[in-house]
């Protein structure tokens, strides 16, 4: 990325206006542009987690639902009326790439918490496959499932799930304890991760002596202690108040930079999803509605549901230049400053407005298009 230094400091976010009209100003061919598609898959390493046609149905004879062509297609409400079964997760498929922060977003009841529990079979899925580095977790026996939970995938919970009778250090090292680590190793590792999440000095406190945010740091440290490859977060910050929530989000971003774990993050908060997620999956009534980067969701919502969701997002904070640039026209003066296509609009606003000429959007030396005052103002005015 080539971002002029004066633009790296993000401007204070403007209040999102309650814009009524949010027509997509993106040309159709751009949305479907192969370069975007390719980015997600081509050349990417094998996924860490691959979920394929996953179903979780609650109720008697739940097994029959995914097997029946007819029942599979029914919306949740009708399925409930016909069979008495509740389909929490319906035919869900997605891949999580190594090092990625993959966010699953949906309102309450959308099945997202069930989904994340299906990944390590805290809830037993009804049908489908969950591959961890190519091995199907659903086929694992109890022993290897336990090993997987002990070493490879750790989880952070909404209400922390700490052990109230243990001190912070003992909570953090609990996972090491149950997998049989020695006392010395445990305390050493606990000290490391406690330091990592910024809880030094609280090692011998009890959970209920800590604030909510600090308790969740303990939960985070506990998950990190076993050095897992994947971290699952089940709405980890929903129970915290807004300021603490922001701190914790930044903490996750920092940790992601420092330890580079793959993360699957469940949330109902769009701004949290946009802030943390490399890619976001939107769920509704157990089904996948759309999966893509924040810019893709905002720039090209798959349906009215997603459109409604992203309506109040300040578009200039999410959209990149790729989404607003126009093709070069013969009379354009092409000696303006150059920007990469993934630069967020907000960060290019001043450069565009100060420049006499439209700025050039350049990728690998190739000129993709230009952005002038008109394009910028269209986005900024809307948001």
């Amino acid at each position, binding site marked *: 990325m080539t971002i002029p230094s004066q633009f790296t400091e993000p401007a204070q976010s403007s209040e999102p206006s309650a814009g009524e009209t949010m027509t997509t100003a993106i040309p159709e061919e751009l949305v479907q542009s192969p370069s975007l598609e390719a980015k997600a898959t081509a050349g990417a390493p094998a996924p860490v987690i691959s979920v394929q046609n996953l179903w979780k149905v609650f109720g008697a004879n739940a097994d029959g639902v995914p097997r029946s062509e007819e029942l599979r297609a029914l919306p949740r409400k009708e399925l409930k009326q016909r069979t008495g079964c509740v389909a929490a997760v319906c035919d869900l498929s997605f891949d999580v790439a190594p090092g990625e922060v993959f966010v699953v977003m949906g309102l309450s009841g959308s099945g997202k918490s069930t989904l994340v*529990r299906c990944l*390590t079979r*805290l809830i037993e899925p009804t049908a489908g496959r969950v591959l961890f580095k190519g091995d199907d977790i659903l086929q694992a026996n109890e022993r290897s499932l*336990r*090993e*997987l*939970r*002990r*070493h490879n*995938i*750790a*989880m952070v*919970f*909404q*209400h*922390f*799930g*700490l*052990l*109230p*009778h*243990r001190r912070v250090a003992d909570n953090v090292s*609990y*996972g090491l*304890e*149950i*997998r049989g680590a020695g006392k010395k190793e445990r305390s050493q590792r606990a000290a490391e991760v406690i330091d990592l999440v910024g809880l030094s000095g609280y090692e*011998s*406190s*009890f959970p209920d002596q800590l604030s909510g945010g600090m308790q969740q740091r303990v*939960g985070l440290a*506990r998950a990190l202690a*076993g050095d897992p490859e994947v971290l*699952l977060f089940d709405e980890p910050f929903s129970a915290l108040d807004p300021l603490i929530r922001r701190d914790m989000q930044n903490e996750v971003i920092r940790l992601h930079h420092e330890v580079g774990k793959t993360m699957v993050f469940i949330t109902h908060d769009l701004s949290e999803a946009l802030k943390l997620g490399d890619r976001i999956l939107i769920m509704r009534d157990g089904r996948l509605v759309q999966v893509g980067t924040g810019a893709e969701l905002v720039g090209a919502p798959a349906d009215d549901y997603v459109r409604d969701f992203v309506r109040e997002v300040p578009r200039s904070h999410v959209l990149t230049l790729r989404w607003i640039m126009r093709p070069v026209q013969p009379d354009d003066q092409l000696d303006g400053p150059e920007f990469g296509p993934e630069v967020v609009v907000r960060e290019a606003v001043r450069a565009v407005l100060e420049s006499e000429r439209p700025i050039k959007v350049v990728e690998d030396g190739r000129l993709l298009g230009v952005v002038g005052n008109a394009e910028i103002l269209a986005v900024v005015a809307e948001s």
Partner: protein
Amino acid sequence: MTSIALVRTGIRPFRGAIVTALLLVWLVGFTVLHGQDTLALGAADTTPLHGRLNDLNDAVGANRNSNPLFLYFFNEIRLVVDQLTTFISSLVSQPAFGRPVPLIGWLGVVALVGFGSWALGNLKVGLLAAAGFTFMGLQGLWQQSMDTFALTLSAVLVALLVGIPLGIWAGVSDRVNRIVTPVLDFMQTMPTFVYLAPLTLVFLIGPASAVIATLIYAAPPVIRIAAHGIRQSPKETLEAAQSLGATRSQTLRQVMLPLAKRTIVIGVNQTIMAALSMVTIAALIDAPGLGRVVLRSLQSLDVGTAFNAGLSIVIMAIVFDRVTTAASVRVERARRTTSRIPARVRKVALLVGGAVTAVCLYLSYTFVWAAEFPTDFDVGSPISRAASAVTDWAQLHLSALTSDFKELVTNSLLNPFQSLLTDSPWWLLFAVLVGIAAVAGSVRTAVTTALCLALIVGTGLWFDAMTTLAATLVATVAVMALGLVLGVWMGRSVRVDRVIRPVLDAAQTMPSFVYLVPFVALFAASRFTGIAAAVVYAAPVAIKIIADGIAAVSPTTMEAATAAGSSSWQVITKVQLPMSLGTLALAMNQGLIYVLSMVVVGGLVGGGALGYDVVAGFRQNALFGKGLAAGLAIVLLGIMLDRITQSVASRAQATTDHVRH
């Protein structure tokens, strides 16, 4: 909302009308037919069924040592329990091992109890325990206290040994829980009294039967509470352990048990209190101890002696309660102490205390002065004399007041109502009760009621059962009246709650037996005495339930009612009471169960009817069968009342829930 409107406007008055009509039919039937088909049976008369039960008793007696069921099962249980009881008794209460005194004398017991309480709880309860036990000795009741103590200890040991694992199992496994819960529910509706008769049939009369009856009665609380504690572990914490790869046994040992520890200790408290209560009542089947002193002196109307022994029971109950409560606080606080220094100080102090205790144990083993409680300071006789004097004074000077009150209640309320129940033709009352059960509950309730009543007719004790029912209902009305007044008051004011609740808690730890003593002092032996004792015995539980229900009414709703300009009276009658209908019904259910169990105990002090039949059954061999049948009738009454009130409660709960949502 429409369904509520229906309930409110359509079905309710309809139900009310049916009940009223039923009651009218009953009244008319009573006036026309009264005295016919009452199925009355004289106190010494028996029916063929009672005879057959007597024969059964004889047959069991004759074959006790040849029937394989007895030889290899019941007798074995009896033997094991007997040995345990004998062993513990030989430690503290009975001469053993060729010694004229028990192994541990009074000094040793006092030191050990004090030290143990200190170690499990805190220094304060340690001192309380030592002082309490010493005082029992000063009352001249050391021997009897130790008998009670030994029996309670034996029963509690076995109850916990069985109950805690079973409770944990029921907590972990849904299937076990589904099996255990209805059994426990049933056991808890049975009045204490009822356990005794069938047990004597199988295990003979004596300490072993007393211990077995006690452990059966005392185990349910700890099973239930332990299961509840395990079940209460927060779901997310369990999920967290699971997601970290904990095995089932790791989760149980490291997460569930530590989290449930405090709750389990509370269960132990309940079990101990229940055990003490039952051990005193087991005096009826010849269990030694304080209960026997109370029983004998109540029978000879020696209120002074009964009071002295009752005081000992109360003191023991207070000591047990305080110590186990302190122990549960310690469990809670053990993980709390962040600094380690006080823990070390305590450890050293405990070591010193342990050494002193050991010395006391040795002294009490070796020297007579430390073995037998000295008789120089006799506090018991003055207490007895004072209690007798107060009783005499009360009966002399207050008799105008007390006997007037007694006469008033007896003549204006109890007698007419009892006559209504007992003098109606049995088939009429049968039909009316089944009808009421059907209207108030469901068809299922009606079937249960019919079955219970038919079996009561079968026991041949219909008349006595209706007498007991009358007393129970009258007492329950009084309990509910008390419960409403005090419960609403407490529910509306945190300050009142804070004052009254500890009193109620204390009252609930008292063994039921003890309640009789002051009422005998005030009202002498009569039917009324048993009822009054039952009211006071059952009131705390009803008051607490109602207070909790009233306090649980959403403050927003209250605020809305006040904002609309309601007066306090309107808030109570139009918001708080209607919104806690379910709780009121629950309070009535519990009140009835408690009252029934106490009304039966009231048979000891002139309550007559079923309670008297049971007691007479223990005393006279010829009446054993009748006593057993009376016990059965009590159980049937209990089941019937429980089912009816429970279905009313669940219906009321359902309507309240509708309104709330």
